[in-house]
C-alpha cells in the first residue's frame, strides 16, 4: 500500500504543482513568454513517455516469446492489436481485441 501511496502522491503532485504554478503565473505575469529551460524540458517530455512505454512493451512481450509457440501466438496477436490501436485509438477496445486475439490463437497453436 505504501508503494501505491508513493506513486499516487508523486503522480498527483505532477498534476497539481504545474497547474498551480501556471495559474499563479498567469495572474502575475500576463503574456510573459516561458523561459528557455522550461521550453527545452517541455520539448523533451513527450519523448520520455513514448520511450518508457516502448520499453514497457518490449519487457511485457519478452516473457511470452520464450518458445516458438509463444512467439507465434504473440506475433499473431500483436497484428490485430496494432491495427485496432491505429484505426480506433481506443485503449479499452485495443486491450479487448488483443486479449481475444491471443486467446483465439492460443486455442490453435
Amino acid at each position, binding site marked *: 500500500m505504501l508503494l*501505491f501511496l508513493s506513486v499516487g502522491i508523486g503522480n498527483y503532485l*505532477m498534476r497539481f504543482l*504545474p497547474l498551480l504554478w501556471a495559474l499563479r503565473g498567469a495572474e502575475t505575469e500576463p503574456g510573459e513568454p516561458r523561459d528557455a529551460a522550461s521550453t527545452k524540458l517541455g520539448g523533451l517530455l513527450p519523448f520520455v513517455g513514448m*520511450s*518508457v512505454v516502448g*520499453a514497457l512493451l518490449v519487457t511485457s512481450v519478452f516473457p511470452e516469446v520464450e518458445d516458438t509457440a509463444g512467439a507465434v501466438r504473440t506475433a499473431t496477436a500483436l497484428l490485430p492489436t496494432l491495427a485496432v*490501436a491505429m484505426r480506433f485509438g481506443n485503449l479499452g477496445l485495443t486491450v479487448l481485441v488483443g486479449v481475444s486475439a491471443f486467446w483465439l490463437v492460443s486455442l490453435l497453436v
Partner: protein
Amino acid sequence: MRRAGHPRKRDGAAGGLRASVPIVVGYLPAAVAFGVAARGAGLSTVETVAMSLIVFSGASQFALAGLVAVGTSWLVIVAIGLVLGVRHILYGPSLAPLLGRMGAGRAATAAFGLTDEVFAVASTKLQRQWEPGTKFGWILGLGAGAYISWGVGTWIGAVAGTAVIGALPSLAPALSFALPALFVALLVSLVRSAGEAYQDVPGPVFGAVLAAVIVAAALYLVGFGSWSVPVAGVIGPVVAFLIGMGRLNAD
C-alpha cells in the same frame, strides 16, 4: 435564455459528467482489464481497487502490476511509476489559460482527475468565456465521471475476472496479453500525438522509440530487465535530442 456554449453555474458539474461519457466508454474495459491483470500479478482485490483509487493513472498502474509480478525492487517500481507520470507536468500549464482565475484549493481538487483523457476532453471543450464557478464544476464533473468508471471497472475486473478465469482456464494466459496490448495502444497514441506536434521533423519521434526498444531489449536479454525501462526512458529522449540537433545543424 442562455446562449449555446455558455452553461449556467449549476449546470457545470452535470455538463462535465455528460462530457465524460466518451471517457467512461473507453475506461471501463481498460479498467476491467487492469483489474484482471493486477489479480493475475498476485495483488488482492482490495489492493487492486486501492491502487486504482490512489494512483488513478492507467499506464503507471499497469506498469506497477507488471513489475510487482516479476519481483522488481521497490525503488525501481516507484521510479518507473513516476517516470510514466512525467507527461502530466504539461497538462496543468496547458489548461491554466482556459481555467482562468482559480484558488489553490480548487486547483488541488481539479488536479486529481487530470488524466490523459480528461486533459484531452477538457482542452477541446472547456471554454475561456465560461464563469469561473462553472469551469470548476465542469472539470470536477468530468474528472468524477472518469474516476468513478475507473474504480468501478477495476472492481469488476478484480472480482468477476477471477470467476471467469475459474470457469475458462484457457483465458488466463490470454489475459496476460492485456499488458502488451495496452502498451501498444498507448505507444500508438503517444507517437501519433507527437507526430502531429513534430510534423516537419518525425525523425526524433521514431528515433526515440527505436532507441528505447533496442536498449530495453538488449538489457532484458543480458539479464538487466529491471533496468531496461528507466535506461530506455533516458536514452530515447537523448537520441531524439541528438537527431533534432543534427537536423538543425544540417539546415
